[in-house]
């Protein structure tokens, strides 16, 4: 992967120049940080010192690095000898632990209310990872809560959230949201966000996510979590798509693989069903090569020979991997549109791909779609190739 220029400007990552920039995979500095967080020997300390030296220290770090610093703290705490910036790392862990406790208490209340209403739930992303894999409630920032219910339970689940004081942030009619989205966010005054899911991603999942689900508890309240193979697949596919954060998906994936009693044959089967595109294989190869992730070689071999997606999935992968900043969404939308047509549901679907994009962008007509496309093309033409990506790296990812 080519290196990229980095300028720290109020938390925004600024790119310059051209070339192959796969922003979903860690760059050199991010790899140092991940080594400090994940490697279980003294080289973690060496990586931490190298990261401090090369970045100029914690005072110059991007907000996105906070994602993994609590994990760095825990890993370094297991090493012998003093570690630079240890107390500030510990402070980051304390803060994260505090925030997570409040979120987990909210999760308990929501899950208990759902259970009382007879709605089956599954917690996703941070909540499930903390409960099942990290075994530490301070190392992994959660940001928000992600709760999955079965599609036919969504209206009732939204009523439960409403009764608990959570309001949907999108007032689009549910029957339209059910087509264009996979979740709807809810917020409560002075509280965090709850994403109510009916699917795992905008690209409809072919695997039955409830198959092999693990029974877990959040604060004593029963719920479920994805099976380890599906959880790993979810984290990987989420991480290597647009807005995926490399520090996040790598640390989550390594943790699942290490602690998840992974059924690798089930993982292979799930990947073949899901056809996520060849970048998933690249992610696995990367984790093995860079972090010695205990992924059996036969998994890589078999997936290397498997059909991981058709032309649409490959084009979507290519667009994301080649940093087609303003164009990577359209192949992805096409894949999403195709997957929608596969699902067995009674949803009213758009008449075609163009109308699907129209629905996503909430434009009422093809004229509106055209105007929006023109405005985007104008931005590209105006700023050219040196246009700052402006990716707000403080966006929550998983």
């Amino acid at each position, binding site marked *: 992967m080519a290196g990229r220029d980095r300028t720290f400007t109020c938390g925004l990552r600024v790119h310059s120049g051209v070339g192959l920039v796969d922003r979903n995979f860690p760059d050199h500095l991010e790899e140092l940080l991940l080594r400090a967080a994940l490697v279980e020997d003294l080289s973690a300390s060496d990586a931490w010192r190298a990261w401090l030296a090369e970045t100029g220290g*914690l*005072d110059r*770090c991007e907000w996105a690095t*906070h994602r993994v610093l609590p994990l760095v703290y825990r890993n370094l*705490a297991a090493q012998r000898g003093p570690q630079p910036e240890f*107390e*500030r*790392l*510990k*402070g*980051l*862990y*304390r*803060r994260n*632990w*505090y*925030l997570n*406790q*409040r979120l987990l*208490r909210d999760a308990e209340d929501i899950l208990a209310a759902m259970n009382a209403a007879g709605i089956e739930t599954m917690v996703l992303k941070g909540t499930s990872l903390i409960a099942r894999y990290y075994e530490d*409630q*301070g190392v992994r920032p959660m940001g928000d809560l992600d709760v999955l219910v079965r599609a036919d339970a969504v209206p009732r689940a939204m009523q439960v959230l409403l009764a608990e004081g959570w309001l949907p942030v999108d007032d689009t009619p549910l029957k339209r949201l059910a087509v264009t989205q996979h979740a709807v966010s809810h917020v409560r005054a002075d509280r965090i966000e709850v994403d109510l899911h009916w699917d795992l991603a905008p690209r409809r999942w072919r695997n039955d996510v409830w198959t092999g689900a693990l029974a877990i508890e959040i*604060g004593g309240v029963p719920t479920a979590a994805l099976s380890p193979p599906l959880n790993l697949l979810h984290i990987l596919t989420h991480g290597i798509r647009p807005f995926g954060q490399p520090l996040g998906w790598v640390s989550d994936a390594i943790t699942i693989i290490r602690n998840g009693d992974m059924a690798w044959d089930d993982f292979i089967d799930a990947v073949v069903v899901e056809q996520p595109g060849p970048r998933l294989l690249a992610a696995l190869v990367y984790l093995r090569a860079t972090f010695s992730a205990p992924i059996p070689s036969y998994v890589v071999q078999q997936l290397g020979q498997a059909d991981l997606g058709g032309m649409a999935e490959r084009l979507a992968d290519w667009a994301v991997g080649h940093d087609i900043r303003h164009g990577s969404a359209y192949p992805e939308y096409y894949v999403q549109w195709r997957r929608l047509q596969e699902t067995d549901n009674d949803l009213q679907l758009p008449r075609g791909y163009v109308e699907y994009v129209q629905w996503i962008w909430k434009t009422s007509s093809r004229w509106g779609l055209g105007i929006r496309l023109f405005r985007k093309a104008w931005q590209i033409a105006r700023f050219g190739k040196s246009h700052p990506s402006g990716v707000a790296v403080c966006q929550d990812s998983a």
Partner: protein
Amino acid sequence: MWLLPNHPRIISETLDDEIIAINMRSGAYYSLRGLGACIWSRLSAGTATDDLVGELEDHYREIQVASPVNEFLARLAAEDLVREVQPDVAATASDVPLLPLPELFEPPDFERFTDMENLLLLDPVHEIDERGWPHRA
């Protein structure tokens, strides 16, 4: 008397030689270090308060530990951090590692932080001191 951490209202965690705790009802955050953390670990393990004082008296010979320790325990109770339980309940306490007692005696204490919303708004790297969050610069 037996005192246990007042779960589930109080959630606590051990970080090296520090105990951090939250009162989930009020949102207040607490930090216990030194002898205060050691006492907490012993209470969590189901040690009776009399036995606790006895251990400290044996360790810190010629120092009158009972008064400061009992005052500390009273403050813990006043903050709802601990609750009194019966011996049979104390016997089921978690098998937690006991923090080693400091060599020098200092009266046990804890820090209490209540301005949490403002503390959470602090930049946890740039606006804190060398002790780390939640200590403001």
